[in-house]
């Protein structure tokens, strides 16, 4: 059952505690660890330091001041303009993604504070059809930028996306143009845009909004690249180095400003933002 099917739009509320089992085994070190402790530790294994996947909500919680989040997204959800069906109808995929994530779309958008600095922040949910960019994500990103202009606060976008929402075909491609177009207004208005690249930031998200940050910060361990390894292998069968499309690769080739460990990300953002806004 699709939770947004009835056209009622539930806003994201970070205060709700998800229920979950008590223990999990770390895939990296093999230790049994308290889930709660991992959660409180930014989903980093307290034993070995391995990063576990963060949902968009968890990511938000890890970056913003507690209790500061207000969902400001538009009440919209994915349509099916091409009546697209592959092995499954597109609407079915959307429903499943909504059920799995509890989100209306692949992006959360809200106002919040980071180190007490007000911002508008968007966070992509990779578990929602690979965080792919369809018309809704494009619209929410633009809406977020416009809200940032209206409020005169910085815009932060945390990317986690495989790129194309293939099921929306040309409309996906046009979202690349759309977000890049609206991004120019931030520049003209002197509103800072911090792009945060997390695992993974690829395809048309990388080739549009994610690469257009005034400052671009990558989380340690992020994959950053345009064409996937598989596409490259299928197209030109090229030998690829081990560090291909890693955070270090992106840094060495000048694509990003910094690589930041997850545990420092919030502080770094605060420090950086404070340089862009009048403090005191």
């Amino acid at each position: 059952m699709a939770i947004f099917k009835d056209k009622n739009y539930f806003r994201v509320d970070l205060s709700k505690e998800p229920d979950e089992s008590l223990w999990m085994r770390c895939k990296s070190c093999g230790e049994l660890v308290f889930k709660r402790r991992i959660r409180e530790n930014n989903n980093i294994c307290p034993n070995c330091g391995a990063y576990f996947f963060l949902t968009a909500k968890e990511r938000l919680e890890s970056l913003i001041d507690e209790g500061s989040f207000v969902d400001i997204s538009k009440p919209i959800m994915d349509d099916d303009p091409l009546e697209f069906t592959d092995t499954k109808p597109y609407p079915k995929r959307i429903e499943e993604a909504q059920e799995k994530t509890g989100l209306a779309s692949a992006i959360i958008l809200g106002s919040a504070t980071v180190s007490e600095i007000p911002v508008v922040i968007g966070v992509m949910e990779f578990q929602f059809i690979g965080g792919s960019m369809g018309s809704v994500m494009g619209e929410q990103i633009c809406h977020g930028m416009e809200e940032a202009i209206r409020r005169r606060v910085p815009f932060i976008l945390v990317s986690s996306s495989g790129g194309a929402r293939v099921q929306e075909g040309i409309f996906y491609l046009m979202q690349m143009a759309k977000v890049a177009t609206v991004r120019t207004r931030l520049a003209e208005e002197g509103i800072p845009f911090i792009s945060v690249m997390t695992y993974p930031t690829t395809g048309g998200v990388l080739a549009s909004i994610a690469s257009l940050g005034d400052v671009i910060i990558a989380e340690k361990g992020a994959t950053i690249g345009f064409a996937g390894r598989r596409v490259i292998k299928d197209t030109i069968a090229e030998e690829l180095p081990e560090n291909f499309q890693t955070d270090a690769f992106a840094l060495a080739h000048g694509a990003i400003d910094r690589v930041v460990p997850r545990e420092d990300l919030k502080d770094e953002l605060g420090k950086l933002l404070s340089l862009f806004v009048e403090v005191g």
Partner: protein
Amino acid sequence: MSDEQTLDLLETKIKELRELNKMDGIDLSSEIARLEAKLTALRKELYSNLSEWERVKLARHPARPYALDYIGMIFEDFYELHGDRLSGDDQAVVTGLARLDGTTVAVIGQQKGRSMEENKLRNFGMPRPQGYRKARRIMRLAERFSFPVITLIDTPGAYPGLAAEENNVGEAIAVNLETMARLRTPIISTVIGEGGSGGAIAIGLADRILMLENAIYSVISPEGAAAILWKDKERVREAAAALNLTAPRLYELKVIDEVVPEPLGGAHKDPPKTAAALKDALLRHLSELMELSPDELLKSRYDRYRGIGRYRTLTDK
């Protein structure tokens, strides 16, 4: 043998008959006329019911005119400009200045090759970051002198590979989009063959988007979609249909502004005629756009892209 090949064979036979007809004592005129009528009818039937996959094949037809062919037929005094000024000159992208019916314009085209050697030079029409940055440089040059920008899209996609990632192809495409969004001169983009995803839109953000009748514009190739979405490489026809990649369909979806007609059988059947139709369309759109001030132009371009996308509105609860 495909239907198209059968018709091509028939066409050849008619030509041979026509040669015979020139010789003394043989009059085949009426037979030839009937054969020609038959051929036209068959062609019309074949091409009026082209499937999406058949259009894909036409869009990629090796005899199809490429960017430089159209440039030669549509513009005068083309003066090619090279290089991104940073590190390279990518020959999969052709740029230059030229005259379109007297008006100086900047032309940016993605260029495929026909021979193996040409394709090596043109990288099969897959631009590298250097190509996108060359295009960007020419756009800025055009803006400085208020030359309209005409782009011709024909690429399977941006070149995927190590060197492309090392030169930040993501940035190259993204900053082109940003640049085109605010370029203070008219931009008209035409998909003349393959519009391959991000590699196409990187020179495709425009005031007017045209497509030749048998061109395609798609987020992924039917082959790629079949393999990834259907997990079955053979289901390309199904994928091609699902992707909504044909010009008529994209016009219905209001994403493009005009479908430029091709001769029966495709652009390669009569390149000058196709070029004439495209030139006519370019001139029409250009004359409309040149009525606008740069600010009006930017506003209308902004509004176009700000409004693009299809989604459902929900009740806020």
